[in-house]
């Protein structure tokens, strides 16, 4: 398709984009009917060529903000209210709709990507997704850049998270909560502690290991154990680690590769050890009433992931979203959230505030990691689209057996 410049006016621009989209679908039908030649010409107009334009901000006239987030990720009282969010509304006059819409990065992405590609409103003004997905959105120009005047607390983001490779300086994303992937073992049934990835392949644990179906965490831990720096690994490093995972599956060491439901395997004791997420283990131990499952960062290093705020390109309430983000970057508020969600908080000063709430909580390394703990984890580097496609397909190949 010919690449004409789009008009500046956002409304006309959108109309033109719509018209072009309609044109594509008519031609697409022809392509289906008449074969590859037309399809090839269509291939020339791969989507995502035009830069998207942010929606006009109507925050002043519409004091609401819609926030899409994961389940059990915000403080909640017995009545189902979110105290910190209610306080935000009281302080700013902005009504916040908290939407528990995100259950999985991939399926949320699949749900909203078509609207985002057209620059339309997806019904959320602030979205928290995992960093690798955030990086994908930023690459495609699907996020709006922050106006830092509205986020004075931006300065509170912890130094280690200030300059990720996909968004140096955090101009259009800010971490919400984070966590580690590392090792776990059942301290009732496993007498000898598991401290390294090599311990997972002990004969007494054969067939009783579960690892995460989240590629970046399992492969991150595996690559680290092979001496690879996961902040700058190569495709060979990736495939070496994947080969080891595959061999461990084939040889019967790894029993299963799963998402969130791995915790059921730990509870039913089908799995006695594995590669898991820190926050879940905190919750499992709370339910058990004692530290039945021991979470360990392997001596070769674990991974550190963050679910991260961003403002989608089509959101017309960016200022409100920024005020919301600013609110949660207040150390006192962040400490209140941390006390409830049990994940790593990315806000400087929250530790000091947490000491006031509960000193034991503040010392929990899985919530307020000190420099020593943080030195044991690293962040999986961003992948290009091509790498993401290729690695994910290879990893799914192992998952599907």
């Amino acid at each position, binding site marked *: 398709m010919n690449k004409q410049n789009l008009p500046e006016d956002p409304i006309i621009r959108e109309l033109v984009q719509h018209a072009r989209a309609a044109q594509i679908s008519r031609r697409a039908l022809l392509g289906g009917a008449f074969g590859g030649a037309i399809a090839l010409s269509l291939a020339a107009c791969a989507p995502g060529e035009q830069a998207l334009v942010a929606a006009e901000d109507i925050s002043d006239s519409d004091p609401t903000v819609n926030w899409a987030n994961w389940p059990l990720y915000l403080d909640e009282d017995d009545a189902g209210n979110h105290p910190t969010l209610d306080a935000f509304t009281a302080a700013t006059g902005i009504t916040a709709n908290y939407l528990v819409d995100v259950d999985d990065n991939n399926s949320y992405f*699949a749900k909203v990507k078509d609207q985002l590609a057209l620059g339309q409103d997806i019904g959320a003004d602030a979205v928290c997704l995992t960093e690798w997905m955030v990086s994908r959105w930023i690459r495609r120009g699907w996020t709006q850049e922050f106006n830092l005047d509205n986020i004075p607390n931006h300065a509170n983001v912890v130094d280690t998270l200030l300059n990720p490779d996909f968004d140096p300086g955090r101009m259009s994303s800010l971490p919400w909560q984070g966590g580690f992937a590392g090792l776990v073992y059942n301290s009732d049934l496993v007498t000898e502690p598991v401290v390294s990835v090599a311990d997972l392949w002990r004969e007494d644990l054969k067939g009783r290991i579960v690892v995460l179906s989240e590629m970046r965490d399992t492969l991150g831990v595996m690559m680290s154990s092979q001496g690879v720096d996961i902040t700058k690994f190569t495709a060979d490093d990736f495939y070496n680690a994947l080969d080891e995972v595959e061999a461990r599956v084939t040889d019967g060491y*790894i029993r299963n590769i799963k998402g969130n439901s791995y915790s059921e395997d730990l509870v039913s004791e089908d799995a006695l050890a594995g590669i898991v997420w820190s926050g879940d283990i905190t919750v499992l131990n709370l339910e058990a009433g004692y530290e039945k499952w021991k979470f360990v960062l392997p001596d070769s290093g674990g991974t550190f992931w963050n679910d991260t705020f961003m403002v989608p390109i089509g959101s017309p309430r960016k200022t409100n979203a920024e005020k919301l983000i600013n609110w949660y970057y207040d150390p006192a508020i962040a400490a209140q959230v941390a006390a409830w969600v049990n994940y790593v908080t990315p806000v400087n000063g929250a530790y000091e505030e947490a000491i006031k709430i509960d000193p034991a909580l503040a010392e929990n390394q899985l919530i307020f990691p000190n420099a020593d703990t943080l030195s044991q984890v690293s962040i999986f580097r961003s992948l290009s689209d091509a790498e993401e496609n290729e690695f994910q397909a290879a990893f799914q190949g192992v998952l599907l057996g």
Partner: protein
Amino acid sequence: MSLTAFSHGPSGVSAEPAAQKKSRIVWFLLLPGLVYLVLFFITPLISLVITALKEAPPGAFIGEYVTALRWENYSEVLSLYGEHSIRSFVYAAAATLIALAIGYPLAYFIGVRLRPYPLWQSLALVLVIAPFFISFLLRTVAWKQLLADEGFIVGTMKAWSILPPDTHITGTAVSVIFGLAYNFIPFMTLPLYSSIERLDLRLLEASNDLYAGAFTSFRKITLPLTMPGIISGTLLTFIPAAGDYVNASANFLGSTSTTMIGNVIESNFLVLQNYPHAASMSLILMSAILVLVSAYVFKSGTDDLL
């Protein structure tokens, strides 16, 4: 219109206009069903066929495809997932046989032995359906717990040396086939019951009088007369079992070594966002089932039974 149409019976004087009106009413009454079919079956099917031939343009983002005629999608999924397809049909066939072996005696007991006691018969039928009162996801998760390594069942079997000490059940083909059979037993039992319940016992008496043994009576009389139930029961079990993705999923009774076609489609659709592969795999599954089922129906000569 409908009122005047109803006022003319089939015995009306002007037979032809009445028949025409009647057929119009038939179409009118069929309309909701037809609209439903077009909207929710034909349209998605066409979309599926188109999606199955799409291709990713060079440098496309994940999940972005354009319409094309990329037949390689089919050969690719067949070479990638041929093993999974065969596994699906083997699992589904095994589960169907197990469900038949359990469902037939059960249906026979309810339909024949309990025939003199209608109250017990109804009660037994309610018990067959009773599992449906709980979500099948929950029941499958429950089996996962029951069959767990440290659970009572596996522990006992190991203690009695039925199972070698280092083996397990969950995450193996055994647990997946078991789960499939378990979940589909009611679908097998109910059609079997409805045909066994109509079995004329006097025929069995007659065969007995003619010196047929129990086995011969079963083979020559009971089996042929209850064939419709067997056919519909096996179809109702086999078709959904072949496409099932819950039991074989790593989150339930399966593991990476037990994945079936349903899991492949799920992973391609939701994780890899490789819609053309997911769509072509779905179409292959549909056609394979169609071919297998038609061959089966044709072979058993049961056109009139369905």
